């Protein structure tokens, strides 16, 4: 596998994880809002939400570059490793709970993503029809 692709896949996992951890951190900074409008107003003044938005854009740009280099069915299960990273980092830095049932549930979801990604798709057939 080209070194550049390894780097972009690792970056995709990192960014996916970072978005969710920072998002939770941002939400923890919000006061208890009295209404939806108050919540949106409070969120607009929280710099961590700007960081979430920036990470989202970076994530999108990097993901499109990943898809230029390899199949979705190959990259998606690899980047689903962020499910495990979020579990570990949220336990370490946010003090969230980790137990057997949660690990089992995440394991099922991870396996599900893997099976879905193994499915053949007909992009090549469509391309052939267009040509």
């Amino acid at each position, binding site marked *: 596998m080209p070194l550049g692709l390894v780097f972009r896949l690792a970056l995709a996992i990192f960014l996916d994880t970072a978005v*969710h*951890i920072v998002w939770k951190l941002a*939400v923890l900074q919000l006061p208890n809002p009295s209404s939806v409008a108050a919540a949106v107003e409070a969120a607009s003044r929280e710099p961590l939400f700007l960081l979430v938005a920036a990470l989202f854009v970076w994530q999108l740009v990097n993901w499109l570059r990943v898809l230029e280099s390899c199949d979705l069915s190959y990259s998606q299960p690899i980047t689903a490793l962020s*499910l495990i990273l979020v579990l570990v980092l949220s336990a370490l830095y946010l003090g969230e709970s980790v137990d057997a049932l949660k690990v089992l549930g995440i394991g099922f*979801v991870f396996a*599900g993503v893997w*099976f*879905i990604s*193994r*499915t053949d798709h007909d992009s090549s057939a469509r391309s052939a029809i267009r040509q």
Partner: protein
Amino acid sequence: MTATTIGVLLVILCGIIEGVAQVFFKKSALAPDAKQLWIGAGVALFILQALIYTGALQFVEVSTAFPIGSIAFVVVAILSQRFLMERVTGTRWIGIVLIIAGVTLLAAHA
């Protein structure tokens, strides 16, 4: 209804919204005449989803919310079969069942 239950339901709603948005993006690729319309609708749904997810994270742990959001895969499979006439293979159905089992486990345990 507890705050955690509300949070879990909001995350599931986010997954459904994301699934619909993904179908809209696919529609944009299939219908060049209405491309901007479908993309605009998809982006609007993503913004709505972000707002709801922010609310959900106030009630539920991110290590629970993030995997539950994978319900979007299930929504995409069902909607793409129904509205995009895509074929959902047996392997994909196995994946869907596994995701539903995982989400159910996480939601019940939250």
